[in-house]
């Protein structure tokens, strides 16, 4: 099986503009940044959450706290993944009780990652509200989960894979659509 690149969906500039827009949207819909906190889902949700927080500082002049969530322990498919994932630490240096949380991830697909993330969050406390922000929404949901803030919606088939590549992790900056060919 090979993986071939089909198209580039976003350039570095487009990713940056989208992140700026998402930051504005979240501030607007939240009526400001007080009580707001972002939770980046490992791995690529983390740099995205940090970038959104940085953009918010430019808008509101306030530092919105950013937490990191590792969902490995909350997955429902541990026995199905070939190689067991390496556990990493979550790092949420604030109480989530009564917070207005925005979960941040790169791609929304089946919704199972978000289900796992919410289980993890609720082990930490009782947030006032939880919303979801994703860079790419690609359909094919298996759970009743939708994003509140979407960078870009993309029609895909389920043999296609969306790869968000970010400088902090991948040493390059773009979003590509790839496909598995037998």
């Amino acid at each position, binding site marked *: 099986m090979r993986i071939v690149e089909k198209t580039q969906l976003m350039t570095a500039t487009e990713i940056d503009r989208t992140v700026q827009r998402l930051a504005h949207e979240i501030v607007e819909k939240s009526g400001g940044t007080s009580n707001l906190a972002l939770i980046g889902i490992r791995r690529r949700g983390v740099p995205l959450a940090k970038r959104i927080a940085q953009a918010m500082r430019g808008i509101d002049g306030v530092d919105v706290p950013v937490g990191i969530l590792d969902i490995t322990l*909350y997955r429902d498919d541990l026995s*199905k993944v*070939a190689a*067991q994932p390496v556990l990493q*630490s979550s790092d949420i240096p604030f109480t989530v009780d009564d917070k207005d949380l925005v979960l941040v991830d790169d791609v929304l697909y089946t919704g199972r990652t978000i289900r796992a993330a919410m289980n993890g969050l609720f082990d*930490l406390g009782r947030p006032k509200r939880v919303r979801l922000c994703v860079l790419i929404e690609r359909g094919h949901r298996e759970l009743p989960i939708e994003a509140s803030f979407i960078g870009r919606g993309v029609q895909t088939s389920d043999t296609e894979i969306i790869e968000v590549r970010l400088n902090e992790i991948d040493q390059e900056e773009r979003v590509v659509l790839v496909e598995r060919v037998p």
Partner: protein
Amino acid sequence: MPFRFGHMLGIEPLSAEEILFLLDQSKPFQEIQRHPLKKLATLRGKTVALAFFEPSTRTRISFATAAARLGADQMNLQAESSSLKKGESLLDTVRTLDAMKPDCIVMRHSSSGAPDFVSRNLPLPVINAGDGTHEHPTQALLDALTIRDRRGTLDGLNVTILGDILHSRVARSNIHLLSKFGCHITLCGPPMWVPREIECLATAGSAVRRVTRINEALENADVVMTLRVQQERLHEPALSIDEYILQYQLTPERLRLAKPDALVMHPGPMVRGLEIDPAVADGPQSCVLEQVTNGLAVRMALLFLIIGAETSSERDSSHAAD
């Protein structure tokens, strides 16, 4: 990069890299002990058999709690009530347990090598929770986690182990583990409890020295591990309790000979006033309770890695890494 663990029979066959991987994987579980809600569903539907052929309170409760916090169910076998008393062989007992389809067996036994024997006869991952005078790997791992948290590293530390080294599986596992990181290990206790042969346990290149005078043993130590003195063993070659206390008890005055921020550790159960002065046990350098909490994290990590790996791919028969 990630390692796979088919069994956990002892520290001796592990590499330093595998040990560091286990300690790193314990970190997320340390956080979970601080969560308001500590129960995960990660191993839901899995069963851990706890087979304690030798009485144990703290290790059994720790493993049971670790399994519960991962969402796994448990089967419990305790020596006092087991059919071993009725003459059943070890192999028959564990085969019976296996027939109830657990996903892993955690066992303690008074005979050294019993978990190894079981691992070679059952198609099931085995975790050694202490066997005879051989090894107690999870204790050494939780000790290492505690030391690394407090000191930032394991490399090249001066570690003094006090007490009955000869009969201690905790000491053996710790010597194996610490010597893989180039620690300078000093063993100290009555001569009959610190035999020369114990020096062979260390990995080549690491220094183990035996010292009979406690003041000399404590000098410049980064870590002081005290072991429980089993009073029934004091009779072996005659040594009175009073004499042991006089010569080997870890007192505040003696502890001053170690580095000012030296850690004081004890695997429990601790006998205050015998091997350790209460002022030291409760003092700022003591990490005895931290060890207990870290024990949960290490055991959760092991159960997660062993049972998770078991279901996700074919198991290899040893501790070997990928």
